[in-house]
């Protein structure tokens, strides 16, 4: 009994900083409609800054609290800088582009932190006066935990007062409901947005700084906390402060008790709860349902059949690829296999995003299911390469069939978060189900069959399979099935009113995209000889998104171009020390300068030529 009390108090203590991060994310989203991926980085920055300031300032109680406050305000200012330099320019861009730009900020901050503070984990200081422990029901609970438990409701109260009782807070709430109306009433929107960003980032920084004595600071904080913050915000309801509080408490308890009950499923547990909330009550516990008004954005550009000219370009390209091994047998072939796999992966995501109109932030799940599927088939059933290679994609397809059923019920940001949640579930299972998946150590020794073992044979094998996969996806896009899919994206209402079962088509497309991503995954396993949980982590999903974005979402060949450029750049840049910094900067620049992607430039040029 007493252990339950203790665990629940520990859970409550951890809810404090979870609440701070989540509520910041939530109010930023509420007003600006931007899901800020970099919010977790602000949290990490808060932790590092507080640690660093505390080293500088003399020890003592005052030193710690000054560090916390200064760190929080500094992070708030960093937030303002990010808003001013980047987000302000893309408020009107599609959600996907905003997510990618903020992910660029994540990468930049990651490497900046690494550069300034190095890779070592930083231990948090003891807080003078709160460094003891209190005996509760026969167990010791750190005094600092009690302090956190006590201030969480106070913070909630302060925020509640700010938003309910001050003029500024009322404006923010009004803007959350109707931005245009608030602007029409003469409120300076630009300043309001910046101020909201300052507050939100400050809260994230405060959360990181307050958590410092408990968890210290390390370079993985950002991704870990942002995933949790997404979960909390979705459970509580986007834009709801009280909802974020309740959800933070819930998730804190879930984590505290999950360790006791399902020690191997703690990570998945949180995401399972989020997935159930999204399915049963998509707007979250206390969120308001989005208005069902039809989207008003400009229609997607027309998808044109490949012209003669482009066929004339494809043929020599394919011939060149087939002939390549005659000219070189070196590392280029390995790189090319990477590109083929990336191209198929990107094409499968593009199928979902472009014609399907469904945002996925967790496409790596199906790549990973294909990869692990092949690896497990080899390890436990000792299947030879070819059957494993051809069966594994269907395992990914099964996963997509299952998750897709839920996903096609949601739209926009909520859909993106649900796909992310599913990917995190799969990832955490691979990570924590050690006896089967080997956890962090991965599965090793997965080499191609003897006939495909040499570089050239595997090159041809992957070229054939990837080309077949990509060609099939293209055929489908221009076949009646693709028309139905594009029609459902353009206007679900119209599609239903001419007999198209919109969800069925989207569900099928989700599954097909899963199968193709799975094929890419299983080819990947045999090209590397091993598989690790990384293949389904968030960065891999984002890589695929970058490739599609780079090539242009609404172009047919764009994703292939994007995959080639990205894989090559990745290969070149990853030899540099701070390549993520550069990648992040390029990502931000790309979104800000070319919101239609590289392929989109050609498309624009063509439409200009036609109209003139």
């Amino acid at each position, binding site marked *: 009994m007493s252990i339950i009390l203790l665990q629940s108090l520990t859970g409550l203590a951890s809810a404090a900083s979870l609440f701070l991060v989540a509520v910041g994310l939530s109010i930023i989203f509420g007003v600006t409609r931007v899901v800020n991926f970099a919010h977790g980085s602000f949290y990490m920055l808060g932790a590092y800054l507080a640690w660093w300031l505390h080293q500088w300032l003399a020890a003592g109680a005052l030193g710690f609290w000054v560090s916390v406050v200064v760190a929080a305000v500094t992070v708030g200012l960093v937030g303002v800088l990010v808003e001013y330099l980047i987000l302000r320019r893309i408020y009107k861009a599609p959600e996907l582009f905003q997510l990618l730009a903020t992910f660029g900020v994540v990468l930049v901050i990651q490497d900046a932190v690494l550069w300034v503070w190095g890779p070592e984990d930083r231990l948090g200081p003891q807080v003078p006066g709160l460094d003891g422990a209190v005996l509760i029901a026969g167990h010791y609970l750190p005094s600092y935990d009690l302090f956190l438990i006590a201030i969480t409701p106070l913070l909630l109260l302060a925020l509640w007062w700010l938003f309910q009782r001050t003029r500024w807070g009322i404006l923010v709430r009004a803007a959350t409901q109707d931005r245009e109306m608030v602007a029409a009433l003469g409120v300076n929107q630009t300043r309001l947005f910046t101020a909201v960003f300052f507050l939100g980032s400050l809260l994230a920084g405060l959360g990181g700084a307050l958590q410092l004595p408990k968890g210290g600071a390390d370079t993985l904080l950002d991704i870990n906390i942002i995933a949790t913050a997404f979960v909390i915000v979705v459970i509580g309801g986007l834009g709801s402060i009280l909802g974020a509080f309740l959800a933070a408490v819930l998730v804190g308890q879930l984590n505290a008790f999950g360790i006791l009950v399902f020690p191997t499923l703690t990570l998945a547990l949180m995401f399972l709860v989020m997935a159930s909330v999204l399915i049963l009550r998509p707007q979250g516990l206390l969120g308001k349902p989005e208005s069902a008004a*039809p989207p008003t954005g400009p229609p997607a550009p027309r998808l044109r059949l490949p012209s003669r000219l482009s066929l004339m370009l494809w043929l020599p390209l394919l011939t060149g690829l087939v002939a390549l091994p005659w000219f070189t047998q070196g590392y280029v072939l390995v790189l090319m296999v990477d590109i083929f796999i990336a191209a198929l992966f990107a094409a499968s995501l593009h199928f979902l995003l472009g014609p399907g109109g469904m945002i996925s932030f967790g496409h790596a799940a199906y790549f990973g299911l294909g990869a692990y599927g092949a690896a497990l088939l080899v390890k436990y059933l000792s299947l030879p390469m070819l059957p494993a290679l051809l069966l594994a994609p269907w395992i990914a397809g099964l996963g997509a069939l299952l998750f897709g059923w839920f996903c096609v019920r949601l739209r926009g940001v909520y859909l993106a978060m649900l796909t992310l949640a599913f990917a995190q579930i799969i990832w955490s299972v691979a990570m924590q189900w050690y006896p089967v998946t080997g956890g962090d150590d991965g599965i090793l020794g997965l080499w191609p069959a003897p006939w495909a073992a040499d570089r050239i044979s595997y090159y041809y094998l992957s070229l054939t399979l990837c080309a077949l996969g990509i060609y099939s996806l293209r055929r489908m896009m221009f076949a*009646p099935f693709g028309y139905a899919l594009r029609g459902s*994206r353009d206007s679900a*209402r119209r599609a239903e*009113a*001419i*007999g198209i*079962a919109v969800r069925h088509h989207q569900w099928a497309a989700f599954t097909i995209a899963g199968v193709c991503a799975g094929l890419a995954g299983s080819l990947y396993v045999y090209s590397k000889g091993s598989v690790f949980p990384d293949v389904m982590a968030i960065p891999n999903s984002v890589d695929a998104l970058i490739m599609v974005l780079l090539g242009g979402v609404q172009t047919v060949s764009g994703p292939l171009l994007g995959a080639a450029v990205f894989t090559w750049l990745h290969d070149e840049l990853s030899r540099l020390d701070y390549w993520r910094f550069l990648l992040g900067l390029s990502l931000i620049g790309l979104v800000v300068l070319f919101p239609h992607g590289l392929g989109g430039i050609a498309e624009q040029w063509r439409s200009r030529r036609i109209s003139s």
Partner: protein
Amino acid sequence: MSLLQVQGLSKYFGAVAAVDDLSFTVAEGEILAMIGPNGAGKSTCFNLLGGQLAADHGSVRLANHELLGLPAYRIWRLGVGRTFQITASFGSMSVLENIQLALLSHHRRLWQPWRRATGYYRPVASALLEQVGMAAQAERSCGILAYGDLKRVELAVALAHQPRLLLMDEPTAGMAPAERAELMRLVVKIAREHTIAVLFTEHDMDVVFRHADRLIVLDHGQMIAAGTPASVRADPLVQTRYLGHS
């Protein structure tokens, strides 16, 4: 025997009854206008009949098939075509492709994953466009069409599966007066030729009284009058509540 039988149809938004115990019938080939002030529940009624909204009570039978509870795509398959108050079309596709997609759906070819869709049903699609006077714009993107033209495309799409009943929610909203009269003339002509029943809403009373066989008048979700154009025009309740005569 009437084609459509609506019995006790009701829909509440919170405490407000948008459609309140509504009953009426539409005969085979009949042109029935539903009129009433803004907020009377006309669009809600259309969305209930078309399956875009779920009703709270009542029954809607189309030649003995219960429509309530069916998804919109199933209702369409039973022979109900519809156009929307705010036009809905496939903006990234050409006018011709919009019609082709409706025809593909009618012929149950939507799941065909391999053969190119461009070649399917071109002559039929062109004929439909000819019928609504849009043949010249067949290759243009639907996303850049003028509003009136979009209404015509919607009409052609709705006719693609040779419906028995057309639901047209303000088919002429946002059009110039001359265009309105012309479009309604076209609708009536096609409907008479193919024995299609039409249920439509319209604010232009000239159009309504000229083309409708029968009228029903809605106010606060309830039917306050029904009958021939002449009898409805003479109805004192309709005059005070809607037509604005005192």
